[in-house]
Structure formats: C-alpha cells, structure tokens
C-alpha cells in the first residue's frame, strides 16, 4: 500500500516555482517558466499600461515586462538584490516578464494538496487555487488571467 501511494504521488505532482510578492507567497506552474533573470535595465514604453514597466532584451528577443505588484494593486516595486524577472511563456502566446520580489524554491504539490475552490483572496481570478505544503499555504497563480488585459478587480 505504501508503495502504491508513493507511485501515485510522484505521478500526480506538479512543480511550482515559489515566488514572493509583497508578503505573500505565490506559486507559478513550472511549465510556463522559460527563464529567470536578474533585474536589468528596463526600457520604458510611453503611454503603456501602468503595470507594464517596459521592455527588456533577452537574447535578442524583445520581451515586455509587467509588475505583478502593480497589477495586484500593491505598492510599486522597490528593486533589491533579490528582485527577479520571471520570463513566462504561456501556451500559444508570446513570452512576457513578471517582476517578483524574490524567487524562493521549487515546490512539489500533489493534486490532493491543491484546493481549487478558492475565492478567498482579493485578487479573485488571478488565483487558480491554494496549495498546502510543509511550510504553509501558497497561492497558485492563474498565468493566463494575469496576462490578459483586466485590471485587478479589488482596486
């Protein structure tokens, strides 16, 4: 029986990158992550949405960068040594960069540890569920919803 459980859990596990935004921890499905880069100079684009800080150059490709803090209605970013840009590549779409305060760890979550019926957070649809792991709760980000045009509903 114990063996069976082991097999089942490795099969139904999804890996998430744990990131810090404000004082909350979020998880982003690892299959969307193309690259994680250090903070670099961002070229401002005039008249862009406020949460788009501009564009960066990743190996010859021009990638727009958005601030998750601004998008989630938090205080604007204060860049530190720990600030990272996650290059996220959603299915069938061009890549986009997410600025996060810190990248923590890779978290394995089994399906049964994810609570999908969650509208407990004020970001509403930006969250696809809440994961429970050894160190506490983690909000799982709905990448497609974050990228689409909508502003945070709570603001």
């Amino acid at each position: 029986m114990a063996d069976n459980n082991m097999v089942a859990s490795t099969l139904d596990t999804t890996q998430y990158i744990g990131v810090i935004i404000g004082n909350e921890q979020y998880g982003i499905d690892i299959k969307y992550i193309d690259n994680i880069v250090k903070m670099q100079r961002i070229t401002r684009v005039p008249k862009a949405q406020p949460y788009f800080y501009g564009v960066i150059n990743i190996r010859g490709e021009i990638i727009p960068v958005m601030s998750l803090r601004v998008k989630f209605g938090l205080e604007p970013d204060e860049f530190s040594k720990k600030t990272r840009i996650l290059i996220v590549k959603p299915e069938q779409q061009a890549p986009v960069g997410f600025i996060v305060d810190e990248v923590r760890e890779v978290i394995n979550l089994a399906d049964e540890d994810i609570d999908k019926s969650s509208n407990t957070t004020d970001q509403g649809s930006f969250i696809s569920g809440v994961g429970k792991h050894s160190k506490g709760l983690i909000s799982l980000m709905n990448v497609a919803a974050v990228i689409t045009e909508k502003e945070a509903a709570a603001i």
Partner: protein
Amino acid sequence: MDVSQYLEIFIEETKEHLQSLNEQLLVLEKEPDNKETINEIFRAAHSLKGMAGTMGYKRMQKLTHDMENVFQEIRNEKMKVSSTLVDGLFRGLDALEEYLDNIVNNQDEGTNDNQDIIDLFQKELQAGLAGGSGAPAEPAAPAAAPAEKAAAPAAAAAAVATEGDTKELLDSFTLTEQEKNMINKARAQGLQGYIVRINIQDTCVLKAARAFLVFKAIETVGETIKSLPDAQAIEDEKFDFSFSVVVTSAKKMDEIQAAIMNVSEVKSVDIALIDESKCEQKEAAEQTTEKAAAATGTATAAQTKAPATTAKKPVVNRSVRVDIDKLDDLMNLVSELIIAKNGLVSISPADLVRDEKNSSFRDQVEYLERITTNIHQSVMKVRMVPIESVVNRFPRMIRDLSKKLDKKMELFMSGEETELDRTVIDEIGDPLQHILRNAADHGLESNEERIKAGKPEVGSIFLSAYQEGNNVVIEVRDDGHGIDVEKVKAKALERGTITPDQAETMSDKEIIDLLFRPSFSTAEKISDISGRGVGLDVVKTKIEALGGSVECRSVLGEGSTFIIRLPLTLAIIQSLMVVLGNEKYAIPLGSIQTIEDIPTTDIKYVEGKEVINLRGTVIPLVRLDKILDVPNSKQDQESLTVVIVAKGDKQAGLIVDDLIGQLEIVIKSIGKYINNSKMISGATILGDGEIALILDANTLV
C-alpha cells in the same frame, strides 16, 4: 508511396497554369483567331487535366476535360470563339481556382461538381459544332493543328532516327530469366510486354517527382516490371532526362503512350513491343511531339543517342525554389549579425586611433561593417519579388468589371518587373485591387457620358510601378471625370466631418484627403463593386501599416491618380538615434528632411502652438519629451535641436535633447501585450544590448 509529397508541386504548377490560362483567354477574347494562343491554352488545359487526374482530383479532372474538349474543337477550327463561350471559360477557371483553394486548405477538392459549367460547355460545343460545320470544311486530320504542321519536318527527321532508336531501346534492356518469365506469363493472359522510354523536358526541376507521376500513370494502364535505372536510382534523381521501364499491359501501345503523356513536363515517350524472341522484335516505335516545338524531334533523337552530351540544350533558368521560412531564418540571422556588428563598433575605441593595435582593430571592424552591409543587401535581394505576381490578376478583374458595369475600359500596366520585399507584396494586393475597382466604378464615366464629354468611348486605367530612391511607387491613374471637390465638400459638411468654417479655408488637396477618412463614400449609387464607405480608409490604414503612404491627385474632368509609396524593405532601416532625457529613440532616416539648431528666441506662436519659420516655411514644433512623458529632459536651453520630419507635403519639427548619429537598425515588434500608442512603431536592440524604441514620424506630423 503517397502523392501528398507532390501536392506542393501540384499546387504551384496548377497556379501557374491557371494564371497562364487567364492571360491567354484575355488575348483570345480580343483575337479569336490567334492560333498560337489557342494552342497555348490547349496545352495548359491538357496539362492541368493530366495533373488533376494523377493526383486523384476527379471533379477537377472532369471540368478540365470538358474545357479541353472545347479548346480541341476550336483548335481544329470546328467552332468559333464567342463571347458567351469566353465568359463560360472564365467561369470554368474560377471554378478550378475554387477547387485549388479547397485543395490548398484541406487537401480535398471539395464536392462542388460545377455541373452547370460543364453543361454550358457541352451546349456550346454542340451549338458551336452545328454552326461551325457549315463554315470552313476543313478535314479533322490532326495535321490541321498548326503546331503539328510546323513540327512536321522535324518529326519526319526524328521518325528516321526512331527506327534505330527502337532497336537501341530494345537492346538497352537485358531481361533476366525471371523477367522474361513474367512477360510470358502476362502474354498468356492476353497482355503485352512493352519497353517504354520516357523523356522528360530538360527544364524540369523535380525529375524524381515527375518520374513518380509517370509510374503512377503507368499503374493505371498496366504493371511495371523493371525500370532502368532501377527504382531507387530514379527516386534519387540519378538519371538524365530520360529513363526506361518494362511494362505489361492489356492496353494498346498508343493508349499507354497517351497515359504517360498526360503527365506534365514529359517531352516524349518512345515505346516498343517486346515479342517472344525479344531480340528480333517487331518495331513499332512512335514519336510524339505534341508538347514541344519544332526542335523537339531532333533534340530527342540527339538525346536518346547521347543523353549526356546534348548539344543544343536550351539555357535553363538557374534557379532554386526555397521555402520562405528558410529565408526568414536567414534574414533573422543577418539581423543578429548586424546587432553584433553594432556592438563591436560601439566598443571600438574611436579616440585611440593612433595606437597601432587599435587602428588595426578599427580596420577590421570597418571591414566587418562592409561585409555585413553587403550580406544584408544580398539577402534583401533574395527576398525581393517582382510586383508582377500581384498585378497579373488585374487584367482579368478589369475585364469582368467592364462586363458587369457595362462600361468599356482597358487596363494598361507598366513596370511589372519592379521588385518589392515579399512581406510587402503579400499585403499590397488588396489595397491595389480596391483602388482599381474604385477607378473602374467611380472614376470612369459611362460610355455615353464619355462620348458626350468628347473622350474616347473606351476608358483607360493605367497601373505603373517604378522605383524611386528607397521607395517603390505604384500609380493608378484613370482618365475619368476626376474628383468633384465641391461634391466632396458638400458631403463632408452634410456628414459633419468638417465645419463650414473649415470648409472655407481648406485647400482642394485637403478636401480630397477627406476621402481617406473612415466611412466616407461619395458614390451616389452604392454597388457591390465599391462604394460602401469602407474603402479608402482601409486602403490607407493598410498601406501605412506597411510603412508606406498614399495620396490622391485629381483634375476635374481629366481623371484621378492614386500614388502609393512603399518602402523597399521592412526589416532593417537606416535611422537617426536621438537622446531624450536618459532614453534613446530611433527616427527612421527616410522621414527626416533636415536637422536644425534653433535659438529659443526664434519660436513663434500661432493659435497658442509653437512654430518656427524655417527659410520661409512655417513648421509646427513637437516637444517629444512632453508627448512621450520623458522624465529629466533638458529642453529648456537657449538653443534647441530640431529634427525636421515630413510626411507628404506636411512637416513638423521634433525637438530632441541630443543627437547620437546614424545607425542601421533591425526593427523588432514590442509585442501585443503593451498598449501601444501609434507613436512607437517598434523597437531595436543596440550594440550594447540596450533597447531603443523607434518613433513613427508619420503619426507626429
């Protein structure tokens, strides 16, 4: 094997044949007795039929077959070309195009039988034959066809050669016991064994594919026992322009020959019967010279004797078909190379020239710069396509419009060989078509009006293309009644597009420009050809999206001209790099006229807006830092750096902090996520990896 791998060739060739049919039919309509054209049409229709049949597109084959029948009778002078017939034939071509579209989209020809068109052909055929039989009572002998007549002497010469050929053909094969056995067995079943030599046209590019189609054709009439060279070698294209096969079949020799000749690009087929004692076979070779001109006979004879040393080989077009994706890849790599080169240039220590090491470094960098520029130009040239591929469908369109609108008109084209980047070519078709339709529908008057105005009854539309510096200009001119400025003005007032005050002060040119505003159509009668008010603004948007511009000139009573200017290339441009605050921007060099230093005291105000008087011209100033929300700009100095840009006749002065210099930049998109104001047309990566945005000067004027 599966025919799908030849689908691409099939589609390409069918397109070519259809285009040629369209062109030739137009000629035929004007000169119904042009023998050469009739033959050309017949050949194209025949090849189409064969190709469609081989690929298994039965409906397409049926339709072309019926068309071919019609041409056959015309060719034999048994019936005349009538205008209803030409209309029917054009409809037939449209139906074929529809099949082709279906095939392109879902590898299937669709289910439309186009029975009405086929019926029409048959009716015409009967009517034509009945009416024609009274007329020139020429015998139906095949010799009546002029092509064959011309070819006759050569064919006769060739026939002598083939006597020997057949022998040689038979000798070229040594059949193994097993193969002899198979032939004998087949013979016992009432079949016959043949040796067939297929000669492929020496202009053929994909010999292996042709050979495959030949094998397919043979399968329909018999069975292949052996081929020389063997099947593998044929598949690898390890043969000259001919190969031989041993076939068993119940069909007669000429039927087999006809089946193979149906495959396009087959020049001729030699065939010989294998009789029991193989070595003393009865000779029964034939030569078909249907496809080629007079020289073919002799050429074939020469070729069969010594295929490798064909003396009078026509100059083959030395070209290769390349997938456009591969070219795009190459273009991207060249772009990367230019970025890397710019990187080197930017770190080369310009102020240390005296040092020997540094100066040789600079020499190398300059060398590299030259090479990359040359590579770029070569790649750009490869991507250039003559504009012909877009405009060649227009004569047909004008003909149809002429019938539909019941106006007599003619299209004159020039400069079809002018080349444009493929990306531009792909997009320019629709706008051009729109302007031409406009000219035909609104521009030209009706026949009666033209006669009344003392103009020739037949209206003319001119389409000319030519290169002008870094631009290609396409002009569409008609000799119609031109644009009635007063009418446009009245309409604009009625619609509230302009106020009466504005109407007073507007120049004629500005009023004509109103036509390019959204939802503005002055046609009194709305037709399905044009005039729904969704016209010229769409044209303008599309052309501007390509980095081009469109303007209209018109003289009332004499006609209008639409002038489209397009950049030669889209991907890499020369630009001026400027500084605003801490940011760098690129302004395309093409739109820059001059750069001026203007003392702040020279700024005047007109209606509260800043202008300068530059050598007699009043030019409005644009404070880029304000428009682009640039922080820390230092534009409050005593003297301003002003970049004068122009769009058509209009000018504007862009105030910048500083100039960096000229740079060759690669245009990249900033993607769809960011809400882009139209001012930014893209971005580029500088030598140090930094990004600079590209300003679209057109939107700032």
